[in-house]
């Protein structure tokens, strides 16, 4: 009966109730949307780090200063990862595989014929074994490991993203897709740099063919078979001894990553795992969530003030009705309950409405943004991750907010003198 009464009372003052509910709906929708966006971005960032899969990887590299590490600069220090270190890492318990990555030890450029023009850009040359890029390279192990020029070459698909995002739109150039670049011939120019032209000395040209794109290969260069890089290094540096830029270590389970990491650190090398980066990202996103959440809370606080205002006005308007209820035997508590129940219904409706609007807006924004990112090869499946628990919390929060902000008006209504209210 109370519920019916409350619903009827709300229905009798539809416009005001709807306006108040809209206030809460907007607050809750923004809360839901902002938390979902933050979670979605966090998930996307984590997926980007883990390549959408394993978090059982470690990257071993010579120790570098914090700044260099933070800026993701290449570790070209004195310390070297020798084949002996490679074997030692391989022998650490729980390590299932180790893939070395080699770099051509001097400047290098890449030349490409594109739309009738010869373009040249600085590009480092990296070498990896077949197993490391097996997922991205369509050819056989044989064709990678025993390759002769033109070497099969992979580039990071982030390069295409950077081009499509920054260079193409500002220079009025067309977008590239992976298909546009697949199979084109490129020329690698060891020891040549467009930045330092005087360094060029060999004039050697190494043929290569772009055969694929990878998330795992370095963004600042082209990746070819490791044997080819070794050969280039030996040819161009008489003092060259085998060493690696990094080792990509696969651990048998996530639980053992820390163990292996410690063992590698004990060898005197750096070992970074996606877990660390994920933790840093999670921490950053928690801060972002807090910031976005605070904005929503301000919106909700304003909505709360609207609730208080609505209920104060309602009490003043309904004084006579309160008087009748009191004459018919309603206690102060009954009067308070009537108003608080109305607030609960408005809070519930606002909460549910907010979640529905939030999710619809999220889906709409998701589609719009992802459509706008159509030319980007690496993009998350969804930018908004809606957590049912957050929704449940939002509804509860909305109801509690309504009750809190209507409590004083409800108490005021309950304390009205019955006769005065009746005669109003």
């Amino acid at each position, binding site marked *: 009966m109370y519920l019916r009464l409350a619903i009827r009372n709300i229905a009798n003052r539809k416009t005001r109730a709807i306006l108040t509910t809209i206030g809460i709906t907007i607050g809750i929708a923004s809360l839901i949307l902002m938390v979902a966006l933050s979670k979605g971005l966090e998930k996307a960032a984590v997926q980007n780090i883990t390549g959408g899969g394993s978090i059982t990887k470690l990257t071993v590299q010579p120790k570098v200063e914090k700044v260099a590490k933070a800026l993701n600069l290449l570790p070209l220090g004195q310390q070297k990862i020798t084949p002996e270190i490679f074997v030692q890492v391989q022998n650490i318990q729980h390590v299932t595989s180790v893939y070395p990555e080699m770099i051509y030890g001097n400047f290098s450029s890449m030349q490409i014929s594109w739309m009738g023009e010869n373009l040249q850009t600085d590009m480092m040359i990296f070498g990896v074994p077949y197993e490391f890029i097996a997922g991205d390279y369509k050819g056989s192990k044989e064709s990678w490991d025993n390759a002769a020029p033109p070497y099969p070459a992979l580039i990071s698909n982030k390069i295409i993203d950077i081009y499509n995002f920054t260079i193409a739109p500002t220079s009025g150039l067309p977008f590239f897709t992976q298909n546009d670049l697949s199979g084109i011939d490129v020329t690698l120019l060891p020891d040549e740099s467009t930045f330092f032209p005087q360094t060029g000395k060999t004039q050697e040209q190494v043929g290569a063919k772009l055969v694929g794109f990878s998330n795992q290969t370095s963004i600042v260069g082209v990746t070819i078979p490791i044997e080819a890089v070794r050969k280039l290094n030996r040819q161009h540096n008489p003092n060259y001894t085998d060493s690696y830029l990094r080792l990509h270590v696969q651990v048998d389970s996530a639980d053992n990553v820390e163990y292996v990491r410690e063992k590698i650190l004990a060898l005197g090398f750096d070992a970074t795992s996606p877990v660390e980066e994920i933790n840093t990202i999670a921490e950053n996103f928690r801060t972002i969530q807090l910031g976005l959440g605070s904005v929503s809370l301000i919106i909700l606080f304003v909505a709360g003030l609207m609730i208080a205002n609505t209920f104060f006005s309602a009490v003043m308007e309904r004084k006579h009705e309160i008087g009748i209820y009191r004459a*018919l*035997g309603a*206690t102060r508590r009954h009067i308070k309950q009537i108003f608080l129940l109305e607030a609960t219904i408005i809070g519930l409706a606002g909460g549910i409405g907010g979640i529905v609007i939030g999710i619809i807006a999220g889906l709409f924004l998701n589609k719009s943004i992802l459509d706008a990112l159509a030319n980007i090869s690496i993009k998350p499946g969804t930018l908004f991750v809606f957590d049912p628990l957050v929704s449940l919390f939002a509804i509860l929060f909305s109801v509690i907010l309504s009750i809190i902000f209507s409590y004083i008006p409800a108490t005021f209504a309950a304390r009205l003198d019955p006769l005065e209210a009746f005669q109003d």
Partner: protein
Amino acid sequence: MLQLTNVSKTYHVGDESIPALKNINLEIDDGEFVAIEGPSGSGKSTLLHLIGGLDTPTSGEIKVNRKIINGLKDRELSKYRNREIGFVFQDFQLQSGLNVLENVEVPLMFATGRKRREATIEKKSRELLKNVGLEDRLAHRPTEISGGQKQRAAIARALVNKPKILLADEPTGNLDSVTGRAIIGLLRHLHAREKTTMVIVTHDRDIAKYADRMIHIRDGQIIK
């Protein structure tokens, strides 16, 4: 039994004191049908509000069934109004947002204990509305029925908790004379049937004549 001893009520407006009732002494027996007659401003409505526990006297004592009701705490007064008193007002005071049946259910909603069970509430209300001849108007809103029907619904609402005393403030004041007489007829009929004590306040001597006893009030004092 309803007993008022030396009851006075004075209202204060700024520095001015306005006496509404002066030393009222009155006894009404259980099951009596009494009319309090007097002109506008004579204090008859104030007297009704005091008996109904909506207001408290400035001095004196009001006893209902040997229990002093002035000085009761708000919660107890609410309970008294809900269980012992039924109010009928001149302008019906039905809730426009509720239908006739729901309006009658309101006092039961505020009643404590087993009376509050939904099924019981509805059954009782339907029964009362049948007794006042509104069984075919249950789902109508107050705006959809006539003045006489509204007052019948209000009477059903006043009686739904089986009160000991029904207080009616100008129950025919907003009705034409024919409908007014029909309402008084209904009250008489229900009085005979339920044995509820009925106190009617009116300025209309013709209506007051329907009561078993008439009390005349002028300038806050009982004159006869």
